[in-house]
């Protein structure tokens, strides 16, 4: 991946691993644990090279005991350590949700702010590669619903690195979701946007700031991770039809950057929200509600939502591709909004 000077390209997973390495060098309290995070380097490569660099004491392979080791991360964080703990697939949350929902999220509040949990729970999300209902979810809303957790989901190698460094330095518990297909792994779909320019050295991208990734005047499309990338693809096609779509990469679910969304809607007067999570009670509903409450009279047409239509993720390729919002579906929905 050689390129011109100052324009180093990295895959998503290498950007993540580099962020963790930099923080481990900077702060002895930072360490990593999880299943296969050691010699293997994480099933989705998020800890690639860390074991060789830092050894088994600070890059800890765990038994398959998510309650045990996520609970241990909470206990270590309460003692001032800064653990990064990996839940291999977000879908595995069910075996350890008590630790996440009842402890990681609530201890700071229940202690009146006296106990801090500076920890990162890093987890792989997303479908699109026929891994079926128990290995393909994003579950953004499941985590964003619970007060007390910051929930972030970066979409580019640059943001993966900068937001991971910010997450490690944050004194709050952070759920850090990386999208499997945006890791740039050799054994998954090869997507251009899973590789990007990543500066060497340390930098942070603040948690809780959305980003306008493409400016436009006719319709706002809000997405996160893969849906944001598909929205950009759709926006390029819309442009060919004379429609200027503004695309917002949400980047962070909690805190939610309402202002960036509202500013955009006040400009375009049309809103489409796209999500790789389930439709009902999800991110699309939350953003639609925010806009309906705070910018209803700026809207020319009703808000549109695209998401997984309240079914588990099916295995068969045509079925899965039909239920996860595609570039075509986004294109069509956005064009409809403008033509209404």
């Amino acid at each position, binding site marked *: 991946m050689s390129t011109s000077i100052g324009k180093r390209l990295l895959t998503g997973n290498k950007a993540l691993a580099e962020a963790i390495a930099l923080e481990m060098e900077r702060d002895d309290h930072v*360490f990593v644990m999880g299943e296969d995070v050691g010699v293997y380097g994480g099933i989705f490569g998020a800890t690639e090279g860390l074991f060789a660099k830092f050894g088994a*004491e*600070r890059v*800890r392979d*765990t*038994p398959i*005991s998510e*309650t*045990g*080791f*996520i*609970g*241990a*991360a*909470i*206990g*270590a*964080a*309460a*003692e*001032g*350590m800064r*653990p990064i703990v990996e839940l291999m697939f977000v879908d595995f949350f069910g*075996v350890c949700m*008590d*630790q996440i929902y*009842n*402890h990681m999220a609530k*201890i*700071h*509040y*229940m*202690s*009146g*702010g*006296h*106990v*801090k949990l500076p920890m990162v729970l890093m987890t792989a999300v997303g479908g699109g590669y026929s891994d079926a209902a128990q290995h393909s979810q994003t579950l953004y809303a499941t985590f964003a619903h619970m*007060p*007390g957790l*910051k929930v972030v989901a970066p979409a580019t190698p640059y943001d993966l690195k900068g937001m991971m460094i910010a997450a490690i330095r*944050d*004194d*709050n518990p952070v759920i850090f979701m990386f999208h499997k297909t945006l890791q740039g792994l050799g054994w998954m779909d090869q997507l251009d946007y899973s590789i990007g320019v990543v500066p060497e050295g340390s930098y942070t991208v603040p948690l809780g700031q959305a980003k306008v990734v493409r400016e436009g005047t006719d319709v706002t499309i809000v997405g996160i991770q893969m849906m944001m990338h598909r929205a950009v693809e759709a926006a390029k096609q819309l442009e060919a039809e004379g429609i200027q779509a503004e695309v917002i990469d949400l980047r962070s679910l909690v805190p939610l950057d309402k202002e960036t969304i509202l500013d955009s809607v006040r400009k375009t007067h049309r809103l489409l929200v796209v999500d790789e999570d389930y439709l009902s009670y999800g991110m699309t509903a939350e953003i639609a509600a925010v806009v309906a409450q705070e910018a209803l009279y700026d809207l020319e047409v009703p808000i549109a939502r695209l998401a997984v239509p309240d079914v588990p993720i099916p295995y068969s390729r045509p079925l899965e591709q039909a239920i996860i919002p595609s570039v075509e579906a986004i294109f069509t929905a956005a064009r409809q909004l403008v033509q209404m």
Partner: protein
Amino acid sequence: MSISLEQMKWMYATMVKIRYYEETMVTAYAEGKSPVFNIGAGPVPGEMHLAAGQEPAAVGICAHLRKEDTVTAPHRPHHHAIAKGVDLKRMTAEIFGKQSGLGKGKGGHMHLFDPEVKFSCGGIVAAGIPHAVGAALAAKMKKKDWVAVAFVGEGAANSGAFHESLNLAAVWKLPLIVVIEDNAYGISVPKKVSTAVASNVERAKGYGIPGFSVRDNDPREMYQISEQAVRHARNGEGPVLIEIETYRYLGHFQGDPELYREKNELNKLHEKDPVIRLKSLLESEGVVASDIAQLEAQVRKEVDEAYDFARKSEYPTIEEALLDVFE
């Protein structure tokens, strides 16, 4: 492994303090709840799980702990908190839901956090064990000889968190001591109905770690076994499991009709009360009655002052509900 007279006096005074604290809570909790019992009424609302009778487990091991050692406790946490040295005034204020409480009134009796003495507890059975594993891991990574103690009831020994934690602590050879307080019932379900082994100490073998039984709620035996256990953990030799046969004099929570108790069960338990037994031991060591009475008066005064502080403290302002979600 004999107990020094000073240690014995500390254990006795702390057991009296715990017992008096819980007895005072029985009365305070009942306020505003008659003639109709409403769990949400009175100065102390919500569930209330009291530990009168279970004092030996807490004092026997906390006698060997330092401020830097961590203790995690379950939903019945007052005896552990008191034995670990949690600020009694702020703890009581928390239970009364006051701003001066440990958690500014946002935790309540099942969720007490005092980082000054590294104490925490929680309302989910067995969930505190992995937190103690993490504290033990932190101690090891910081190269300190601190230990972590997780208290749980015997019902917790059937949960996944218990087994995951023991395995993890054993694999990583962490300074963890799990203390199971077998008070014979998981709410109403007797141990023999819920548990495949007669003694949970047998389960230590499954993780290749030492396990010890303490019989008949004996504070002196708990002290002696805990000394070995804490030394083992502190020396870096890995986790230890202790199960103590203890008694719960009161219901699972206040208001429990206790239909599951056998007739006369409580009378039999009171006959071998651990506080009385330890008092006899002090007397046999030649401590005079007036000295014992002085110890008792001192701790009762502390408890009375804590309740007084709690009652006189202010409720949080409603804005407080929206604070402390994030740092």
